[in-house]
């Protein structure tokens, strides 16, 4: 942010925001989630007890300790993906064949669609992904405790605790995926459905195991009632398709994969795009 052309009232507003809101915050990102340990331990316990009992032998205390070590020993801008190696080694587990789902720019839709892993198992439904989903964490710059005020975003520094975590997790998820690979992209995203630089492009595709993958299925979803920025075979989606072809993968691309579109329509049931070809009438009775 530059001070170019700032009027006195804008300056005052900025000052107020800094004092009241940020209050001297060091970084641009959200601070550590409160009660991080309890939340993470609880999620781990729930995962092994209920969501995926095949993993009941995992040790949640050891996982937390491995995670905590990274958190407390490293400077907030010097955390690398390999720092999480121990944590990943303790938490990794096999991913059922044909159940992997990669995505960009549609976290909530993915969460709704995958319903706790029963249909597909995206990264956030794998133990190590579950651990960190929707949470934020970092150590204080000058101190050994956690910083609850703010944490480095990718704009502050590349090697921050959260981004490095997801890079490492993404690499592992990719390596352990097999069979049919699904990819959900957002064709209404103005910046492009397939981010050329992003987790999927840089930390997932490069780690696909060619000998374990049969084919890749891309779904380009469009928001109901919003313009279609890109579709299959267009723009950044074409770049992705070219890349996969060059890598020797068999792939297919579908616009608005019906099961997912049906879900999007729940919130737009009266929109013409959501009309079902239905002979069943809904009869109102009062």
């Amino acid at each position, binding site marked *: 942010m530059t001070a170019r052309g700032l009027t006195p009232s804008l300056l005052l507003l900025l000052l107020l925001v800094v004092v009241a809101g940020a209050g001297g915050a060091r970084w641009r990102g959200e601070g550590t989630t409160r009660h991080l340990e*309890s939340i993470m331990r609880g999620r781990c316990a*729930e995962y092994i007890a*209920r969501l995926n009992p095949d993993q009941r032998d995992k040790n949640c205390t050891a996982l937390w300790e491995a995670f905590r070590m990274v958190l407390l020993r490293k400077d907030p801008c010097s955390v690398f993906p390999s720092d999480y190696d121990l944590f990943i080694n303790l938490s990794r587990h096999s991913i059922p064949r044909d159940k992997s789902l990669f995505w960009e720019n549609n976290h909530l839709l993915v969460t*709704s669609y995958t319903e706790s892993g029963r249909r597909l198992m995206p990264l956030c439904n794998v133990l190590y992904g579950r651990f960190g989903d929707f949470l934020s964490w970092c150590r204080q710059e000058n101190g050994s405790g956690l910083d609850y005020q703010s944490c480095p975003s990718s704009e502050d520094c590349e090697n921050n605790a959260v981004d490095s975590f997801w890079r490492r997790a993404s690499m592992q998820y990719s390596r352990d995926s097999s069979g049919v690979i699904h990819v959900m992209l957002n064709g209404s995203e103005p910046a492009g459905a397939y981010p050329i630089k992003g987790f999927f492009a840089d930390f997932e595709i490069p780690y696909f195991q060619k000998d374990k993958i049969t084919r890749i299925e891309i779904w380009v979803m469009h928001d109901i009632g919003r313009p279609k920025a890109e579709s299959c075979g267009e723009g950044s989606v074409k770049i992705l398709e070219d890349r996969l072809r060059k890598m020797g993968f068999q792939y297919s691309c579908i616009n608005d994969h019906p*099961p997912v579109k049906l879900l999007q*329509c729940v919130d737009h049931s009266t929109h013409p795009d959501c009309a079902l070809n239905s002979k069943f009438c809904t009869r109102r009775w009062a």
Partner: protein
Amino acid sequence: MASHRLSSVSEEEPCCDISRKTKICLCVFFGLLIAVVIAVPVGILMWPRPHKEWKGEGTTAHFYEILLGRCYTYTQIVRPELGHKDCQKIGKAFTGAFLSKDPCSSTEQDYKPLMELTDQAVPCDKTLLWSKSSQLAHDYTRVRQAMFTLEDTLLGYMADGLRWCGDSGSSDMNYKSCPNWREDCSNNSFSVFWNTVSKRFAEDACGVVHVVLNGSISNTFDERSTFGRVEVFNLRPEKVHRLQAWVMHDIGSARSDSCSSSSINVLKRILKERSIAFSCENNYGPIRLLQCVKNPDHPSCRF
């Protein structure tokens, strides 16, 4: 008992007509008797008693950690406006309701401290009840986040899908088994909890209340269900002016109008007696779409 003589006694001299050997035996015997009389009650009190065996599934593994983690997730992430709630206190109040107690004698009173700590106002017109339609109702509120099922409130979110019970003879949770409602006892800690929270959830509702019902079963309105026994009777007529039922039928089912069924008529009658209006819709559109997500190839689910 032998009387004592102060004079020295030689080893061979008998005392009170009992031989020395017998005297030793008697002493040993009484000594053991005293030891047993003291040790057995102490042993009974101190020895960890095996939990009673019930017919139902035991307490969920890692119950307390899951409970606490969910409380923090809910109050810090899902509904941060409840960030002031004290999860440690709430966790302790929850376990305090059933630990060291007979799991077949649970009462609403046991859960009172917990209820007080987890009070939560649901906005009017946003309460969603359900009966024999759990998956569908919760899939719906996952998308329509402005609406709340009981399991979308703090306490429901914490307890959903978990099982728990204690034992009057122990301060531990019973992980092996817990009372089954039908085969063991109905006033068990698990059932009493859900009856208590369901009652409050209904009492707190206001405006138009919605309910998702299953039109593909015979008793669409089941008077023995929690909805039929507890919730319907605890809606407050002065706050709730209408109950709107969404009766969902399985995709591809021949049946499509359970709003006209006799069980729904029973529900209508009960509500009329309670001065609450009733309306019913078969296969409410948005929820129909949700059903189609799992059956996308069915003709009625095609765009």
